[in-house]
């Protein structure tokens, strides 16, 4: 419960940060640009033609959700990728700031356990990123709704998947901050973990590039617990394409990602518990 209080405290702090506000402003600007600039004449034309000709002169009438799939695909991909990058950029400073001299001593003097402090920070950042991603994703869905009369869940789903993927990335960033108290290092660790998680999604295809034996075994062993970022992105894209979701696969990938995040956070807590301030 005290971890939740730390998380809420972090959200209050984020609200007052110029950097977070600037990123939120950027997201809003993108939404406004899309809202005012999105040209959907082709779709409007097709819909009007089907109304006007009643099917007689139109060889192929497609449901509007099918016609708009490319748009949702693009939006879902953007939301998924941008959510992750937004998270790394916006949140690189939170954990190092928590550990800053002066502040950490103050926090440790409060009736809080160390793990609660770190877990609260982690949860607060995840809530921030989830909020930001949903803001972007649902916002884009609403913009498309106002333009076409069709509401698609794909951008919101992509935002949720992106937030889950970010939970693993941010765990690595917290660990990096515990090891070296630097926002730059934490951000770099986040970027590197994004790349590694992408690689892990293609481990079966990449394994033959390593000579059979120790090298290949080490590669497979190292990448086995890493989240499959590409797999989650494929789910986001697949939802936008109107394809069904392979539920067991999705659950396993989500579960694996959350477990990996929890594991790395546990390592960070173990190190944090041993640190002298």
């Amino acid at each position, binding site marked *: 419960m005290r971890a939740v209080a730390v998380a809420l405290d972090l959200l209050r702090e984020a609200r007052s940060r110029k950097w977070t506000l600037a990123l939120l402003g950027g997201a809003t600007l993108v939404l406004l640009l899309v809202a005012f600039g999105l040209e959907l004449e082709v779709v409007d034309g097709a819909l009007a033609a089907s109304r006007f000709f009643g099917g007689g002169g139109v060889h192929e009438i497609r449901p509007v959700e099918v016609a708009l799939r490319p748009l949702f695909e693009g939006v879902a991909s953007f939301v998924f990728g941008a959510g992750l990058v937004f998270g790394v950029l916006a949140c690189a400073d939170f954990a190092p700031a928590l550990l800053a001299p002066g502040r950490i001593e103050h926090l440790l003097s409060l009736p809080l356990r160390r*793990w609660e402090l770190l877990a609260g920070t982690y949860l607060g950042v995840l809530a921030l990123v989830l909020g930001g991603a949903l803001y972007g994703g649902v916002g884009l869905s609403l913009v498309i709704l106002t333009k076409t009369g069709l509401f698609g869940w794909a951008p919101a789903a992509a935002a949720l998947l992106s937030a889950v993927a970010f939970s693993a990335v941010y765990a690595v960033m917290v660990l990096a901050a515990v090891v070296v108290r630097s926002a730059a290092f934490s951000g770099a660790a986040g970027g590197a973990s994004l790349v590694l998680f992408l690689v892990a999604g293609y481990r079966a*295809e990449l394994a033959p590039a390593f000579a059979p034996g120790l090298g290949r075994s080490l590669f497979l062993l190292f990448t*086995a*617990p890493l989240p*499959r970022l590409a797999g989650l992105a494929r789910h986001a894209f697949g939802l936008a394409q109107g394809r069904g979701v392979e539920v*067991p696969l999705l659950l396993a990938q989500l579960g694996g990602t959350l*477990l990996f995040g929890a*594991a790395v956070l546990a390592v960070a807590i173990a190190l944090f518990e041993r640190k002298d301030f």
Partner: protein
Amino acid sequence: MRRRRLWLPAAALLLLLSAGLLSLVETPAEPPRKVVRFPSHMRDTEWKRQEARQSLPPLAAPATAPTTPRPGGDPPPRRDPFLVALPVKPGEPVVVFEANALRHSRLGELFIACTMVDDPRAIATFQEETGVDPLKDIDRIGVAGGSVVVSGFFDRARWDRLVAQGKLGVTPYGEGGRIYADGPGRAMAVWRDQLVVLAPDEAAARLSLDQLEGRAPVPEAAIPEDLAYGEVYGVIPGAAVQRLFSPADRALGAKLAAAASRVELHVDAMEDVAAVVRVEGEDRAALGDLARTLGGALAAGRLQAKAGSDQPLVELLDAARVVDEGGRLSLELALPAATLERWFEGCAGRQAPASPAP
């Protein structure tokens, strides 16, 4: 304090759970590739095959020639008439196909089945017209420059029909040969109903028979008997490598010919198709560069094929490699039998529907 120590084991457990959960639903990595054996030397069965084919007595040494005793005092070995008959000229490629073995190989069976789908009577028609069953009577086919030598059983061949129709004239030649020709153009030599030589002119046909019966020396450029292994084998001189390239790529061909003075080819095809192209040359540095170039091209091709989802090419290049053996390089290419079967699957689809029962 005890709780502090629990975090790391908990992290390890969570990592294991994560790996386990993700591996449960992961597309399995490529199954371990079946090891393909590449033809690298004469094997026991090939030695036995070669010994069985050595039916031609050794050449009698000329009376004037100095008699050099063979090591161990062994008599000179008998020879394989097919290899002796190959009218190889210096600088010309020579390639031999073990037609009968290929016909019984996995590739051969698939190929014939595919041919029969297109024209079920093709082989029967050929046999009716020539008296030769191409699936049983032909043993080997050798291509040497412009000549083709075929070994097998031609006692039922209808040569007389060709003569009776006036298409060819026949002339006995030497102890066991006949020359069929229709003038100055292409000619055919038949030797003891075992060998047929299709030559660009009568002189080349006669040369083959002369080599067989000892009236002409066997050319040094022919295939040594210890290189007659695999279902396809041959030797391509560097100069001939250059001719394989189109005029536009002549410069590339010249560079290759400069690096490769001799190219040797061996293909096993009984189950998997495994080919070895062995390149020899004087310039070790150039050969090393060629090996690295080929290796790089294979790797790039493999990646490109994967990116383009060209599965047949991916499977071919997956089993391809270049071995730099210092002074010579070997390019190894393989097609597993399973891949071959997939390639020929289309034939089954084209199979004509069975005629309805009366």
